[in-house]
């Protein structure tokens, strides 16, 4: 594919929105060096820059935990709300009604979404709220210093915690069970795939769940741990090679892409996701296939990554509410308060 060319006359280091990459950055990270979350924040910055997103058109959300700190580390020019533990989904659900032209991007963790916030996680999905929902998944509680999370694999041994006795929650499986319209899994050690999936998720109208395995270098990075860099590198099985093509860009496939089977997914906004199948043939629009591939990964102890499921024609929560064209938070008294004569009508409706 071709990258969009800068507009004539624009400085070479700016994108089509006229912004430099610095305009997408946030404050310096206060997470540990080598934390997978930092790598994801960097990919969010790159994806937004490459997508020519205007930062003011995005709202950032998070709950509580290491992952939930990261919205501070990207998109300084966007509004953000770092809320309560496990309650990011409800905040985002309400906030996105304020201006329906805005896109939400939420960053949560496995504790935030799969434990305390499991209820809200599943309900924000079934409502198809128009947001990217990233779970930075490391199997461990970092800020409280190394307790098991609900996504930790059975048998995992952690310092001071002993061995985990319980079965793990599979974020993607839960998302699918809740009728998510976009489900993807990636690995922080595969930055290109993370970035392309974020771009595709941004183009999706509705909820886009990204379960990104993001190793915790301080508390859970032993070579044999499911959420470690070493294990991920050895066991990652990408379902396909994914490339996101923005709207209006002519699709010119590079030579190497033409070899092998190509699948195109047309997005709501005119963009296209190009999936190049690798060893297996995988159809991400087949929900049954998606369930199977996740179960297969669990059974065979491999990390299936890529776009697991997508459904592009379902209305988002905002679509279902048939709102006026003007953003609700721009409406004035004339739009909101019934006329004075209505008070008599209302009183007449009482007995």
């Amino acid at each position: 594919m071709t990258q969009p060319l800068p507009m004539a006359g624009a400085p070479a280091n700016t994108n089509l929105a006229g912004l430099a990459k610095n305009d997408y950055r946030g404050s310096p990270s206060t997470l540990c060096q080598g934390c997978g979350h930092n790598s994801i924040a960097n990919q969010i910055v790159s994806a937004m820059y490459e997508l020519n997103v205007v930062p003011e058109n995005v709202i950032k959300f998070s709950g509580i935990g290491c992952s939930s700190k990261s919205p501070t580390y990207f998109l300084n020019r966007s509004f953000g709300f770092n809320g309560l533990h496990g309650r990011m989904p409800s905040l985002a659900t309400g906030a996105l009604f304020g201006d329906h032209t805005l896109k939400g991007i939420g960053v949560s963790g496995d504790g935030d979404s799969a434990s305390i916030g499991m209820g809200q996680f599943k309900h924000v999905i079934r409502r198809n709220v128009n947001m990217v929902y990233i779970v930075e998944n490391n199997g461990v509680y970092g800020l409280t210093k190394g307790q098991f999370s609900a996504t930790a694999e059975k048998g995992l041994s952690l310092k001071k915690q002993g061995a985990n006795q319980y079965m793990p929650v599979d974020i993607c499986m839960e998302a699918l069970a809740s009728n998510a319209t976009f489900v993807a899994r990636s690995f922080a050690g595969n930055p290109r795939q993370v970035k392309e999936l974020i771009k595709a998720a941004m183009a999706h109208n509705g909820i886009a769940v990204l379960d990104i395995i993001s190793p915790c270098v301080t508390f859970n990075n032993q070579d044999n741990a499911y959420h470690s860099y070493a294990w991920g590198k050895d066991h990652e099985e990408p379902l396909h090679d994914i490339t996101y093509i923005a709207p209006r860009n002519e699709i010119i496939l590079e030579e190497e892409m033409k070899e092998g089977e190509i699948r195109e997914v047309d997005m709501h906004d005119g963009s296209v996701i190009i999936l190049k199948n690798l060893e297996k043939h995988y159809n991400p629009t087949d929900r049954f296939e998606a369930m199977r591939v996740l179960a297969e990964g669990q059974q065979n102890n491999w990390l299936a990554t890529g776009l697991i499921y997508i459904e592009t024609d379902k209305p988002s929560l905002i679509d279902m509410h048939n709102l006026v064209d003007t953003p609700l938070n721009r409406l004035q008294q004339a739009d909101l308060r019934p006329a004075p004569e209505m008070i008599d009508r209302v009183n007449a409706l009482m007995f």
Partner: protein
Amino acid sequence: MDKVVNDFSITVGTKNGSGSSTANNTILRAIFKMGIPVSGKNLFPSNIQGLPTWYTIRANRDGFIARSDVQEIVIAMNPDSFARDLASVAAGGAFYYADDIKQPVTRTDIAVYPMPVKQLVRSDPGIPSDFRDLVGNMVYVGVLAEMIGLDLETIHAALSFHFKGKQKPIDMNFNTVKAAAEWAKSNLTKKDPFQLEPLNKTDGLIMADGNTSAALGSIFGGVQFAAWYPITPASSLAEALNDYLPSLRKREDGKHTYAVVQAEDELAAIGMAIGAGWSGLRSMTSTSGPGLSLMTEFAGLAYYAEVPVVIWDVQRVGPSTGLPTRTAQGDLAFTNNIGHGDSNSIILLPGGMDECFEFGWRAFDIAEQLQTPVFVLSDLDMGMNQWMSKPFQYPDTPMQRGKVLWDKDIEELKGNWGRYLDNDGDGIPYRTVPGNRHPMSAYFTRGTGHDEHARYSEDASVWLKNMDRLKKKHETARKYVPVPVIHTTPDAAVGIVGFGSTEAAILEAVHQLGTEHGIPADFLRVRALPFTQEVTDFIDKYDQIFVVEQNRDGQMHQILTVDYPQKAASFKSVAFGDGLPASAKWVREGILAKYTPGTRSNGKHAAKSRSKAGKSAAVEAEQK
């Protein structure tokens, strides 16, 4: 036998789910339409079908319509509560019962009237067999029409209203009413003194329930977002939003200026409401005590992050599931400092239907002006029962949106603003909302420590400065919240403080204290926390101030004692929470039990017995 006109209570005992509410509301509305002041209280169990339930109506020519502890007329439709219902009739009263209940009627000090309910309903071929039990309730409406003078035309008007003009159910029910009235005329002899006669004391008034009133007020306040989770007795508030928004906010293009979302729980309901409030919408949620408990963490966040949101708590009896279908004023102390750490709440306390409506819109103004949660504490008695009321008044001020900076404002300020800066010295900062496209408009909202520019900070001095500003903002709030309503009595020796749904009971008790006990009293009804200057001035006047409320521990009494420590010895708690709507009897007896004779109000002579004293309060109550 002297007639007793327009001054008695009627209680109907039925089975829950038997369809008696149509009949009971019909009696209530018919009396109201006859011009007689009236109230109706549904005393129902937490049950869908089968358990005993009561509906008690009080008609009173002088406007004293608090629930009465004395039942002059009792109607028994339920064999399970028959004995209890029979025992509850006041001596000299009247007892009506469905004659298919074959239980002994042992009392001789009351008038007893059997009613052939089943026979009358079966003999009407116009009533399908599966409607017989429902329509059977109309038999007691018809019998009362004949026996106490309940006007048939007003009954018809009430039925037309209830069935929204649908002719078939109106006719079916009204035919039964007429048949029962005719039967009573031919078969019963009046042996009791209780009689209704038309008056003109409800002219210009309406009848409504508090949840509907609150929803309508919210709509006139421009509500844009509501999230809720079902809970008795608050559910009908959100349901009324759904009922009325489509017509009251109808647009030609058919699109919506609002969204109502039923959440998965109260955690999510308030989360959504706070998200919407944060992004600049007039946002609300409605719940009851258990739901409010779940909302606590979020309420604390909204206080500290300074997010406007309106939270209605239609109170019921707690702790825990408590008495979920009974009324209380038990969430006041909890709400006052809801959240962990230091927090102060803005609480509005409506006392009737017109105020449920008014506070419905005003709460948004206050929340947006102060950028903080506003709690409105109603209760089951107001929320779910039909009350007489002055008509709803159109808001007398334009919508107050508070200090919001839009794109051009930030441009004018050249981006030089801080989310938590106290520019005006009133503790209220300026805010921006998402959708503002100015590159300097955005800020990051968090529950963790933050400086005046919304940047993360754990600095001790930054923390203290912000907390002090929040306290200052709470002081400013005293100028924004509704002032109390004060009822004065000449030469009052004592003060009474109450709030919410107990007003009718307190006014009646004030009348009795003045006329029967020689204790003229002034009564202040608090309508908001924090207290305004008017409350301070009132409290300063008396050596004895009775604080009347429906809970066990005297929660308003506690708050007053903390806020006015110098008057702590003057406050006397009259607290009683049995789940029933307040009666004048418990107010009066509670006050008498703690009253110390011979005290005086500051600068006034000690009270003397004055028969006129109480009357003026009653007159005021009517005029209000």
